[in-house]
């Protein structure tokens, strides 16, 4: 048995890697810079976790989302891998210092880009051996990426400061432009590239044109009722999330729950677990759900509201059919809905007419203070505040007038790019002639090599609903005595007593 297979067995309990994982693991073990574009849910994390565990020294994993970090850590803990930890701004001071004090015994450190850009963190990391840096969701680094994160731009310089350890970038969605940008910003030298098609052949694609909210609701109920699930329904806001959940609970025979940022942590975790475990058929969610969630048997992803660009769309539908079985994705398209991504995009950028007063607020403050001020006092979103803070730091020498001009230019530029992407999304939705799969791939600079069957509505196919299993759904109202026994001893023993 090779050392690799042995480690794979020991840590993860798998006998072998997939064909596409193998070369990535090998490249990283050989300290080669690597860019990997892999579809979501294809077991990408193991590609860097395994080499990280095998190498001496620490691997830093830069991850933009708390939920992603949490999920990966939970999975590692469940596998009894204890040499992994996270560091982010949501942790208490005690938790943070506990992590820092055991840095030298860690193999994997998940860190937010904000934390990694703190000077004292970099100083601490300099004192230990950092053998590899991994950037997850690496498209965030790009101006062209769908969620530009200014802190990502600091990763390159930090890498330099840490003695240029091997660098790996992972993403699920990256157009050729974005790929170029990633390589440049992370200062990768002739990286090994593993670019997989974004096409998911086993997900059939559908768009339903609707003329009003009522029709949309009716269509949603019809589709959800006909599908056995499990499935996800994406909506834009917490309020709509709750509203549609209630509607589906009433109008379908499915077990339906809502998932959004407004719920308590414990409730969110519970619902996520229930969905994973098969206690729920449908989750109505905002786009915060599903990040890093590994559920293989999702039958469908239904967009009640469509996302702001093709990258988000690919990422969200990518949660269906991970087990390779036939799955489907559908958008309920209402022309008026365009206002939703418009508003979202507007909120992601600093309002131009407030730039002047924002600069006044920001004068003389630290970066963290600025961000906080802008969010709390001026009601900006975090993304917008970060945007401004970044440019303030980038141009410390510029006069106020010069800065204002530069900022306006940058905001306009970003607005233009976002509009362009939204327009592409709308065109895709409104298309009534060409194959949807071919058009979607075009956005990512790919050609359609093989048309699957079923492919899409334009190719004349119907939604491939799965067969309803006549399995008995869990009886909820067992008396508490039985339930308590089950909790401790499992169903079998509880049944016998």
């Amino acid at each position, binding site marked *: 048995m090779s050392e690799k297979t042995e480690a794979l067995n020991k840590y993860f309990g798998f006998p072998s890697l997939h064909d596409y994982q193998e070369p990535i693991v090998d490249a990283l073990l050989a300290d080669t810079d690597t860019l990997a574009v892999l579809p979501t849910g294809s077991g990408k994390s193991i590609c860097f976790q395994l080499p990280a565990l095998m190498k001496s020294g620490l691997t830093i994993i830069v991850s933009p989302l708390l939920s992603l970090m*949490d999920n990966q850590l*939970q999975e590692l*803990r*469940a*596998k*009894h891998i204890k040499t992994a930890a996270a560091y982010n701004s949501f942790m208490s001071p005690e*938790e943070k210092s506990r992590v820092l004090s055991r840095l030298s015994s860690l193999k994997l450190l998940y860190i937010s880009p904000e934390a990694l850009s703190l000077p004292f963190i970099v100083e601490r990391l300099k004192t230990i051996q950092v053998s590899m840096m991994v950037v997850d969701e690496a498209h965030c680094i790009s101006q062209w990426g769908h969620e530009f994160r200014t802190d990502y731009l600091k990763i390159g310089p930090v890498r330099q400061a840490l003695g240029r350890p091997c660098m790996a970038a992972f993403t699920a969605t990256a157009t050729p432009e974005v790929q170029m940008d990633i390589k440049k910003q992370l200062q990768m030298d002739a990286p090994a590239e593993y670019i997989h098609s974004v096409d998911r052949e086993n997900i059939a694609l559908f768009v339903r044109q609707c003329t009003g909210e009522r029709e949309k609701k009716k269509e949603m109920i019809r589709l959800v009722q006909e599908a056995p699930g499990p499935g996800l329904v994406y909506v834009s806001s917490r309020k709509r999330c709750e509203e549609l959940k209630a509607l589906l609970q009433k109008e379908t025979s499915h077990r339906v*729950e809502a998932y959004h940022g407004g719920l308590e*942590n*414990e*409730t969110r*975790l*519970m*619902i996520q*677990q*229930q969905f994973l*475990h098969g*206690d729920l058929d449908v989750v109505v969610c905002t786009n915060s759900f599903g990040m890093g969630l590994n559920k293989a048997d999702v039958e469908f992803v239904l967009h009640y509201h469509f996302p702001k660009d093709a990258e988000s769309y690919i990422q969200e539908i990518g949660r269906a059919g991970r087990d390779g079985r036939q799955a489907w994705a559908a958008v309920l398209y209402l022309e008026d809905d365009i206002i939703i991504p418009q508003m979202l995009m507007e909120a992601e950028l600093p309002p131009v007419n407030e730039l002047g007063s924002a600069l006044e607020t920001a004068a003389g403050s630290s970066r963290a203070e600025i961000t906080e001020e802008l969010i709390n006092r001026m009601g900006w979103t975090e993304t917008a505040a970060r945007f401004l803070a970044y440019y303030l730091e980038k141009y410390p020498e510029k006069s106020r007038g010069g800065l204002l001009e530069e900022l306006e230019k940058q905001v306009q530029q970003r607005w233009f790019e976002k509009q362009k992407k939204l327009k592409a999304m709308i065109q895709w939705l409104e298309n009534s002639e060409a194959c949807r799969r071919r058009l979607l791939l075009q956005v990512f600079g790919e050609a359609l090599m093989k048309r699957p069957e079923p492919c899409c509505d334009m190719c004349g196919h119907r939604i491939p609903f799965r067969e309803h299993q006549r399995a008995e759904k869990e009886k*909820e*109202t067992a*008396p*508490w*005595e039985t*339930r*308590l*026994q*089950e*909790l*401790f*001893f*499992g*169903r079998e023993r509880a049944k016998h007593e």
Partner: protein
Amino acid sequence: MLFQEAMILIALKRLRGERTDASAYHLLTGKRSSQTITDAKWFQSKDLFGAVPALDKPHFESITASFYRRGWLEAGGVPGAEASAAISPWEKIVEEAGFDGWTYRDTGRQFWRRVALLIQTLSHLYQQKKQFVPIIQDVQAQQWVKRKLAAWGPEKYTVMNRLYEEMADCLHELKEVQAFILAYKLTGAETLGKTTEQIALLQDMEKDEIEYLFHGAVHTLIKKAENQPGTVLHECLDTGGNPQLTVTAEKTLDFINKGLSLDGIARARRLKKSTIEDHFVEIAGEIEEFSIDHLVPPDQQEAIRRVAASLDTFKLKALKEQLDDDATYFAIRLTLAKGGKKSERENRSAE
């Protein structure tokens, strides 16, 4: 009537028009202020402290406004006859729920986290399922469970059986619906817990009420565990600390213990004298060993208690009018904080 509405009326009834309506709001949401903490004690309303934590102020105000309009609340904020009749079944629920947010809000949360995580962990080990996502993410609780498992070693299955017996006993003593809530909140190796909302749906009850009954059940469990050393549940208790004090009162207590006077503390902490007085009142009510004799002469304390009992009121102004001029508001509040509970019980039974 909705749970929230009933709780508001009950709170106002308990306050007997001697406090503002806002005091009822602070009581129900469990505000951490000296005034609310002492109110909960004086008006024997620990079972309402933090009973509806998510209630927001505008909503509270619109509910009370509509009660005034309907005549359910009389001027002065006391429920009228019709309202009193309507809330009587709810008062029974409160009486039987075992809820005591005043004493157990924080310790209750910690206790439940430990119990829930312990049960999840033990059940996974027993059913030989090693991989699971802890349903409790709290690091302290996780470390506590880890330490306990290490300490128990191979005995852990015996411990699990004991814990099962203890839980079954406790749940039997609870009201049926509360036993149901606890059993369905918990997560085991094969069975996932339910959210409060899901349980509310199953029981066809309001979410707020389920939440209240849930905490009431947890508080009952703690009370029982406290009296039963040697049980597994007793081991789940958090020992140490005076969690009932507000952080700021805790600081004042540090200064008192260093020997500073009231004025000295106000200067040292750069706070108003009245603020420090609030802390003293809070500490007096909270810590039995804290004597107020050097602040209020014992015979004056006696006089205050006597007047409070004869007038059957905690209204400071009314008491002050009946007492000598040298009995300050501060002296009255301190005395009531120390002895409020005792005299109140006598009052209530005389009603």
